[in-house]
């Protein structure tokens, strides 16, 4: 079989059946409704039919994986792993594959997946269906957080909408996952779906080898599969029209902080942070620093922000990455020490409680930061923070402690002065202010395993 002809055949089919897309942005957020979710008819009207009219799965399926590979689609859940590679690994596994869509969004500072569920659920469902057909799976499980509320409702309604139509295949199942920062980790999801605790594991096998019900499992972020829905319709060349050669396409970013219009935005990789802030109506206060990637991410000092671009290549020199598309601005008014201590304490509480170094280490780290904030330090607190960070890094079954260390270490670099001030003089005026960094209420108590 000549691969080129298969692709060409596929592309010609999709182009004749779908609308030519408008150039540039928005892509995912095209026609996003102001209220409620986009209905199935409106979705098909906006983006065109789902490109699987004819059921010649063998050749067509391969074409989709190739398309995704050519498009260079990377995961949008934070890790950025190439999706095509993941799909091929699952197909190579033993047993009938199964698709899991991760829409749990445990990162408090991220709202993009929730936005997709609440306003554009059919994009996610299209992607889930296409990915499942491409790898020969007969079931796709969409996981939502138990606190998803509206999003879960609308997703369920959308699934019902599709089930009423003939030719709806494969089966889509909605699954609710208990809330937790680490519960959204791939292996934690798989464990939960298998009836176990929603905690990550380190030991093999990996989900793509043996996951849900011991079958090769493809786990993808909700936004990632949403992109698949559009790549399948418009092709990889279209996808690459935006973005950078090694980070192509567009992505959703949750922008929060002292802004006129904080919220979820769609940007192309490589766009400047300044243009994003403009689109959000500009900042409403001076920005002390920005947190990229979420609470497992990195602080970047305000002074460096004006020249910053939104891509891993632009952020890497600052030790940062976009992660799950989180850009969190901290105003001059806020106390960075209090905020850092608060978030670290929350992260410590989100430990799954499986690994001693994480449970003890993150607690000790949070405690030390709290002491610094209050000026209650004994001895060289900064040295202790550094020592604890080294002790905790990469010593857990998952990357949770690593993320916390990254967050704290960048804080010690960017807020070195403020930390030293607090250590010497205690709480500042800003400490008592209402916190700017969003955190959900704690629902679990973590005890050592």
């Amino acid at each position, binding site marked *: 079989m000549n691969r080129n002809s298969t692709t060409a055949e596929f592309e010609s089919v999709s182009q004749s059946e779908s609308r030519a897309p408008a150039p540039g942005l928005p892509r995912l957020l095209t026609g996003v409704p102001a209220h409620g979710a986009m209905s199935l008819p409106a979705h098909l009207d906006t983006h065109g039919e789902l490109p699987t009219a004819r059921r010649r799965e063998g050749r067509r399926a391969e074409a989709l994986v190739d398309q995704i590979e050519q498009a260079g689609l990377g995961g949008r859940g934070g890790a950025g792993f190439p999706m095509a590679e993941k799909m091929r690994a699952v197909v190579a596994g033993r047993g009938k594959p199964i698709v899991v869509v991760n829409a749990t969004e445990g990162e408090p500072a991220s709202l993009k997946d929730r936005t997709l569920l609440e306003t554009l659920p059919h994009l996610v469902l299209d992607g889930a269906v296409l990915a499942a057909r491409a790898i020969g799976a007969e079931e796709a499980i969409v996981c939502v957080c138990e606190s998803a509320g509206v999003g879960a409702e609308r997703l369920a309604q959308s699934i019902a909408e599709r089930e009423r139509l003939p030719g709806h295949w494969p089966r889509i199942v909605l699954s609710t996952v208990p809330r937790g920062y680490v519960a959204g980790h791939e292996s934690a999801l798989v464990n939960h779906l298998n009836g176990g605790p929603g905690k990550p594991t380190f*030991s093999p096998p990996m989900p793509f080898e043996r996951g849900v019900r011991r079958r090769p499992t493809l786990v993808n972020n909700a936004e990632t599969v949403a992109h698949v829905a559009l790549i399948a319709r418009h092709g990889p060349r279209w996808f690459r029209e935006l973005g950078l050669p090694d980070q192509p396409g567009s992505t959703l970013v949750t922008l929060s902080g002292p802004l006129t219009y904080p919220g979820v935005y769609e940007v192309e990789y490589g766009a400047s942070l300044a243009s994003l802030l403009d689109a959000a109506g500009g900042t409403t206060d001076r920005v002390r620093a920005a947190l990229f990637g979420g609470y497992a991410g990195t602080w970047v000092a305000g002074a460096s922000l004006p020249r910053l671009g939104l891509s891993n290549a632009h952020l890497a020199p600052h030790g940062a990455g976009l992660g799950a598309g989180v850009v969190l601005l901290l105003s001059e008014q806020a106390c960075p020490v209090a905020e850092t201590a608060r978030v670290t304490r929350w992260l410590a509480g989100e430990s799954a409680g499986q*690994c*001693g*170094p994480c449970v*003890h*280490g993150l607690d000790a780290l949070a405690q030390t930061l709290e002491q610094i904030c209050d000026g209650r330090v004994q001895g060289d607190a900064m040295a202790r923070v550094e020592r604890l960070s080294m*002790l905790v890094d990469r*010593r857990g079954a998952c990357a949770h402690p690593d993320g916390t260390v990254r967050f704290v270490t960048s804080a010690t670099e960017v807020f070195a002065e403020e930390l030293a001030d607090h250590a010497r003089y205690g709480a500042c005026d800003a400490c008592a202010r209402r916190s700017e960094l969003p955190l959900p209420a704690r629902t679990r108590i973590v005890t050592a395993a």
Partner: protein
Amino acid sequence: MCAELLPERITLDEWGYPIVDERPLSPELASHAQRAAQACPTFALLVERERSRS
């Protein structure tokens, strides 16, 4: 226990958990490492064969 069985590569942190030096093991140490991994009550240690890059 693992720190007792493989002190060349394992030390304990202030909470009693093992800090593993992940440098490659010599053949003599490999059998000690296997024993240390088997002695762990929670199977937290893994001895991995170094895979050559394909």
